[in-house]
């Protein structure tokens, strides 16, 4: 083996981890600090408590679930099942096949972080009001496929909400088999992704919001959430984005994700 050839192999060996680093750089360049500061948003005091059992609103809510079930078709049931696990790439319906994980590592990491922080807030709120799912309280509600099962409580889940007198949180109860209904995590996820994507691709603003709102609505179609869960999830998402937007680290990461997305979609950069 001569020196030139050895040098070439060395260079190749050297290049492999370098390539790996380049590929991973966008994801790793996200801020390490949380986008939301502890106590920045007091949703337990901002959100309406869920309709009380026996109230007119509860009656309206369950009727809406039953009516949505009556109107359900094979196609709409499948769509609801798909949205139960689709996540970010549900929005490929609007943004096209170029909206795919392979070319969007920064977006994947950015939305994972946003949804992680959002999800923690949702779980805290769910444990505050302890509202059972529609299919748990009404035996006429039949979610399609595995949608009911997929809402099972994760083993080791714990009540963490502060049950102070002013919050209207229910007294702590042992955890049920299924996670609580209010607010809907999927509806808040659909809304937060829609709001952020619409700000990255304002050309498709209306369609992105419509898709994100459908994503939430599909929880009612599937019988795993009430309309009021969905509305509360959307409110939660909107208030959280308004709070995140005040954080310079969030704004910087958002700008990186937007630049990557617009490039992948062959759209001109935005300021």
């Amino acid at each position: 083996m001569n020196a030139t050839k050895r040098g070439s192999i060395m260079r190749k060996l050297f290049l492999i981890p370098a390539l790996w680093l380049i590929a991973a750089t966008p994801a790793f360049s996200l801020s390490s600090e949380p986008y939301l500061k502890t106590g920045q948003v007091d949703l337990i005091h901002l959100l309406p408590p869920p309709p009380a059992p026996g109230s007119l609103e509860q009656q309206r809510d369950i009727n809406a679930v039953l009516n949505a079930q009556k109107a359900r078709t094979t196609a709409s049931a499948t769509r609801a099942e798909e949205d139960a696990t689709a996540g970010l790439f549900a929005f490929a319906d609007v943004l096209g096949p170029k909206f795919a994980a392979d070319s969007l590592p920064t977006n994947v990491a950015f939305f994972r972080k946003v949804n992680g922080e959002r999800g923690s807030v949702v779980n805290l709120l769910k444990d505050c009001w302890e509202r059972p799912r529609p299919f748990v309280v009404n035996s006429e509600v039949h979610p399609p496929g595995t949608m009911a099962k997929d809402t099972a409580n994760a083993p080791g889940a714990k009540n963490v909400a502060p049950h102070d007198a002013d919050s209207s949180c229910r007294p702590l109860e042992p955890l049920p088999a299924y996670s609580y209904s209010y607010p809907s995590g999927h509806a808040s996820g659909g809304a937060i992704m829609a709001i952020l994507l619409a700000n990255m691709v304002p050309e498709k603003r209306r369609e992105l919001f419509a898709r994100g709102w459908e994503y939430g609505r599909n929880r009612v179609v599937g019988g795993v959430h009430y309309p009021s869960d969905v509305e509360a999830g959307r409110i939660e998402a909107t208030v959280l984005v308004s709070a995140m937007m005040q954080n310079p680290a969030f704004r910087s990461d958002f700008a990186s994700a937007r630049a990557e997305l617009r490039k992948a979609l062959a759209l001109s950069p935005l300021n």
Partner: protein
Amino acid sequence: MRKLALAPLVFLCLAASPALALSGKPYITATDVDFATLLPPPPTESSPAGKRDLQAIIDLQKNMTPERMANIHRDLDQSVFTVAGPVLGAKFGKESFPMAGAFFDKVVKDAGVGVGPIKQKYKKLRPFQYSKDVHTPDDIAKAAGGPTYPSGHSTTGALVPIILGMMVPEKREALYERGWEYGINRITSGAAYPSDWEGGHITAELAVNQMLKNPEFRTDFDAVKAEIRKGLGMN
């Protein structure tokens, strides 16, 4: 002569003083929250969500009763006494709670930065303007001048329980139930869609979340809370 002429003015100023003690500055300004970016665009009438929106009004109107219609007319007024009266009782009136009245009028007015400009951004027709299947009493139709999204009434119907629920947590659930029903009355009148109702709720939540950061709001909030709790005989 001049002194005599001034006397009623002095009296008026004294009587009005609790209201005048509120902050002279808005609790929220147009640049504090980017409502235009955060609020969803309303569904178009021809989309699936838009069709569901219209059908919901038609279904509500099928079950119209004289009592519901009377409530719809009562709920045209957006004062805190109309919104919260059914929960807090007959005692809760303008005369005994002057500061509360002025405070909530100001909250509703200031939160308008999240209503009026959005209405103008989308300029969506009211349901009764769009569909002949929606029946709205003439006086309500005439009074509903601006575009439909988001609903100003539903914004008020959320602002009141959010803030009042923090002042009177004992009645928090009932206040929300009433506030959401207040917005449903607006939908039932044919002057707003369910999506306008939801948009109004989002606006209200964003507005209050911002107002809570304003020290002048918090000062006024504390004073109004004291007035309300004392007036209702609460600790």
